[in-house]
């Protein structure tokens, strides 16, 4: 793995995407320095998740570019972008229901597993060793987020908070340079939110990856982010230090205008 000073540098420039006549994202630029925690906030429907989908290749932007570590990823396939080192979690948790908790995390190593088709169908020693190693690594990630001992459980049988953690462990397991978290604290109760903030801090200290997250909970936003970007109607409304952004009158207006 490279340890150059640009590791985890994510830059999106002039992203545009329209669905028919609706401009979901319009000329949105942002950047995250290596090891930085960046928050993207904005009213509902502002296009935050669309930005994530543009970065991860779910949609190709109409205009604009996404660059990670100096490599332009615009127009790449979604799985290729993931392998380049961008992991993500989803707003509505998307775990693999056909697999147990451990296997969910193991899917992260599977695209790289060093054995071929024939070792797989014959269960040759190379395959078994590689799978054992992958399981071991997956267990470590489960341990990290506090899911040790639940390896055999079905993901859908876990309580909501643990499902969020499992999704996080799964994203961590691809060893991303940048990890995108889409409303990671949604649906968590206040004590779970505090626990979650601590967890993200701990993981960030340990792996020092770049984190970009979308969140509505101010507690999370203010506690975690080094830098904030505010989206409204697909456009960048404001950006900068969290405290400064919070006091920005335009931002306050966008939020209050949205609330009943």
């Amino acid at each position, binding site marked *: 793995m490279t340890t150059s000073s640009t590791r985890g540098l994510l830059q999106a420039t002039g992203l545009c995407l329209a669905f028919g006549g609706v401009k979901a994202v319009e000329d949105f630029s942002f950047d995250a320095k290596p090891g930085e925690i960046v928050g993207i906030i904005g009213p509902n429907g502002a296009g935050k998740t669309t930005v994530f989908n543009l970065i991860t290749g779910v949609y190709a932007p109409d205009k604009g570019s996404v660059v990670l570590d100096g490599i332009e990823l615009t127009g790449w396939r979604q799985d290729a972008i993931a392998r380049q080192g961008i992991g993500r979690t989803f707003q509505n948790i998307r*775990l693999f229901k056909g697999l147990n908790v451990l296997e969910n995390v193991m899917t992260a190593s599977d695209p790289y597993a060093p054995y071929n088709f024939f070792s797989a169908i*014959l269960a040759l020693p190379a395959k078994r060793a590689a*799978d054992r190693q992958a399981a071991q690594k997956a267990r470590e990630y489960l341990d990290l987020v506090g899911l040790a001992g639940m390896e055999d459980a079905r993901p859908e049988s876990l309580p909501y908070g643990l499902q969020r953690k499992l999704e996080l462990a799964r994203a961590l397991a691809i060893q991303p340079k940048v990890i995108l978290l889409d409303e990671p604290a949604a649906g968590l109760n206040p004590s779970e939110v505090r626990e979650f903030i601590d967890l993200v801090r701990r993981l960030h200290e340990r792996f020092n990856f770049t984190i970009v997250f979308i969140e509505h909970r101010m507690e999370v936003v203010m506690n975690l982010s080094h830098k904030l970007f505010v989206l409204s109607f697909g456009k960048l409304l404001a950006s900068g230090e969290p405290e400064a952004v919070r006091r920005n009158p335009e931002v306050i207006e966008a939020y209050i205008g949205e609330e009943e």
Partner: protein
Amino acid sequence: MDYIYSILTLTGITMIGVMGTYMVTGLTGQFSFGQAAFMAVGGYVSAMLTLKFGLPFPLVALVGSAAAMLTGLLVGMPTVRLRRDYISLVTFGFGEAIISVLNNSAQLTGGAEGLVGIPKRVDLPLVIVSVVCCLFLVACYKNSKYGRQCLALRTDELAARSMGIDVNRMKLVTFLFASAITGYAGVLYAFYSQYLEPGYYNWTVSAEWLIIVFVGGINSLTGAMVSAVILTSLPELLRFASAWRILIYCIIVLLIINFRPNGIFGDWEISRLWKKRKPVQGGLP
């Protein structure tokens, strides 16, 4: 005795065919309504090679499976990119096309009259060994990185891609492997029944295999196999009810689908019996 012997043999061959359907439907979540056509390819290619060139059985069995796999590549390459419902249409059309070709190239295949004079090379012991071997291969496949990636993309393609899984490639590899296995079932059938006719391979066979997979449990290879045994021998066991047996068969299938929507076995696999048991702690609030 001969009668039971032949039911067992045909059940074994069906089990192998169902393994192919299980892989395509159970692992990658696609519906193949043309799976039986791969059986036709395997059967016809191997039988014709023996009849025209007198090649030995082990060789033609290999070539037959490979031919089915190659056909799978032809169908799979364009279809894995399609949405699930279109895949059913394409495989259905492909299956019927294969039957048409077999029917209309009478000089080569004997057309609708069938291909006769295939030597008998397959008996019950060989079928049993084949079932065990194929089952081993498919079970290992399911339990490997391939199986995991397939199951992942079956529940959520978008999330699978976000984990770096090459969804189209996984679908294609699985489809090819399934085609080869199904082709092998075709080889066994050809050299057991000594007679081939195109009509045997139409979409109703593919649909029957799909029913078998769903009744057994789409998540369970064990379920698919048990249900293959039950549903293949059931029409025979119901023979006393002659005219009613299809109806009874349908009712049994409907009851199972209604009351156990995940199939008889859900996602239970027999391998769990000998995997060491660890306390499962999930589900605590």
